[in-house]
């Protein structure tokens, strides 16, 4: 479904990714873990076109999407719930969700049942239903996170990129977010998940990659990584 080969990227003169390769099969939940500054978010940004890669290949169903603009990649079915949520604060929750379906409403992608999907998104996130007509900027951090995820789902994506969905959330909300991720996985949504809570991420994922300094350091089935002494020591200790 999604394949990244030897990806390199830089911010200005500073090179951040030094050849990242990973693969997400259809229906799989793959997680990308690693310490701060390892290049996880940059990898996500390169895949969704927020930044242009400096080298390597990004393939979506075998077609190269590397270097395309983010709106083109979105139309091909890559939805990105970005780091920091990035909801549109001056617009209502409902408008934010409709904007998630922008490509479907404007013939960039198959339209399908947008109204029905809006309803299903609000079922999945009941807190959002209560706040449907509220401005997104007035939501709490946790609600904004749910809105960012729901908005990305409104694309009916081939691949969903989730960047740090638990960042800055209270423990009870973190649990709720992981519960929703599990549910999406059961529904067959293909996902690439970047997480700081490595243990929780490996707990729900099929396959995992551990990033270090802009490279993939270790990879393997999630269950295997959970028991890898090296991974355990570096990322799973400290009560995460």
């Amino acid at each position, binding site marked *: 479904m999604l394949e990244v080969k030897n990806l390199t990227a830089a911010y200005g003169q500073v090179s951040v990714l030094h050849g990242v390769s990973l693969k997400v099969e259809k229906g799989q939940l793959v997680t990308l873990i690693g310490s701060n500054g390892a290049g996880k978010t940059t990898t996500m940004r390169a895949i*969704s*076109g*927020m930044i242009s890669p400096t080298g390597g290949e990004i393939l979506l169903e075998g077609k190269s999407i590397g270097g395309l*603009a*983010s*709106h083109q990649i*979105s*139309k091909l079915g890559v*939805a*990105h719930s*970005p780091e*920091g949520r*990035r*909801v*549109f*604060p*001056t*617009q209502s929750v409902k*408008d934010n969700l*409709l*904007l*998630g379906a*922008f*490509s479907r*409403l*404007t013939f*960039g*992608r198959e339209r399908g049942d947008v109204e029905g999907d809006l309803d299903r998104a609000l079922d999945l996130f009941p807190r959002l239903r209560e706040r449907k007509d509220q401005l997104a*900027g007035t*939501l709490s*951090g946790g609600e*904004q996170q749910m809105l960012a995820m729901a*908005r990305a789902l409104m*694309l009916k994506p081939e691949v969903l990129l989730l960047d740090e969905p638990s960042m*800055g959330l209270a423990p009870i909300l973190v649990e709720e977010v992981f519960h929703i991720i599990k549910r999406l996985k059961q529904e067959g949504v293909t996902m690439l998940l970047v997480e700081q809570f490595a243990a929780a991420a490996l707990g729900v994922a099929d396959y995992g990659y551990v990033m270090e300094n802009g490279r993939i350091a270790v990879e393997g089935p999630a269950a295997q990584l959970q028991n890898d002494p090296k991974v355990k020591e570096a990322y799973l200790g400290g009560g995460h």
Partner: protein
Amino acid sequence: MAILLQLLLSGVALGMIYAVIAFGYQSTFATSGTLNFGQGEALMLGAMVGLSMAGNVAGGPYINYWAMIPIVLIFGALQGAVVERIGVRPAIKTKSEFGWIMSTIALGIIFRNVAENVWGRDDMPFPSPLPTDPLHIFGASVLPMELLVVVGAIVMMVGVEIFNRRSIYGKAVVATSTDRDAAGLMGINTGLVITFSYALSSATAAFAGVLIAPITLTGASMGAVLGLKAFAVAIIGGLNSGLGVIVGGILLGVAETTTGFYISTGYKDVPGLILLLLVLSVKPAGLFGKSVIKKV
């Protein structure tokens, strides 16, 4: 009392013209953080193109005033799109902070020169589509055309506001204004949205041009001062407040007509500029300017 009312009404009509042009400044600033300093020339071109179709020049009139308006709007939109593609996009691409200032000013000067060569340097009368006999309201006399200016300005701004709130394309414009990167992730072609905002901005200016032309004179130099004053209005009202430009426009319009009458027409531009300086020193974001609070 009648005189004061007269001055207020004339001031409001003038102020609404400033407001429409200032509204155009806001639309490009919102999506791209840039301004079209050739806005006054866009107004002038709109009026001149309108005059060529509906005026007594070059063997005209060819069509009536009302049929001319949509053509002028389309012309304005195309002209704005050209300004964006030639003058602004390269500056945005190279992340040049000031490139667009010079290029939009330069394009404005070029447009003015072209207009001088096509239509001449003399001001021309623009035939009024409405009766030129003033209406009497509580002792004040108002030209029907002045009422049309106010109504037209309000219809234009309300129309854009409804588009922004109701249609998915308008929502995309608002989203691009708040967070361009996130808008791109939604599948919104933000470059196209910026071109659109320039088209909209010049179309509103061209519209203002044909609204005001019948009550002033029409000529290649008519836009420069209007464009500058509308810029002052955009600063006074706040570059991100729709209500602000209406209030700012009316304040400036009324300040000009009252000063012109009670002090001297020679000083009529002064109060507006004093107001501008006051606002800049006391509330730099404008009277109604606001900074959006983002939760992190």
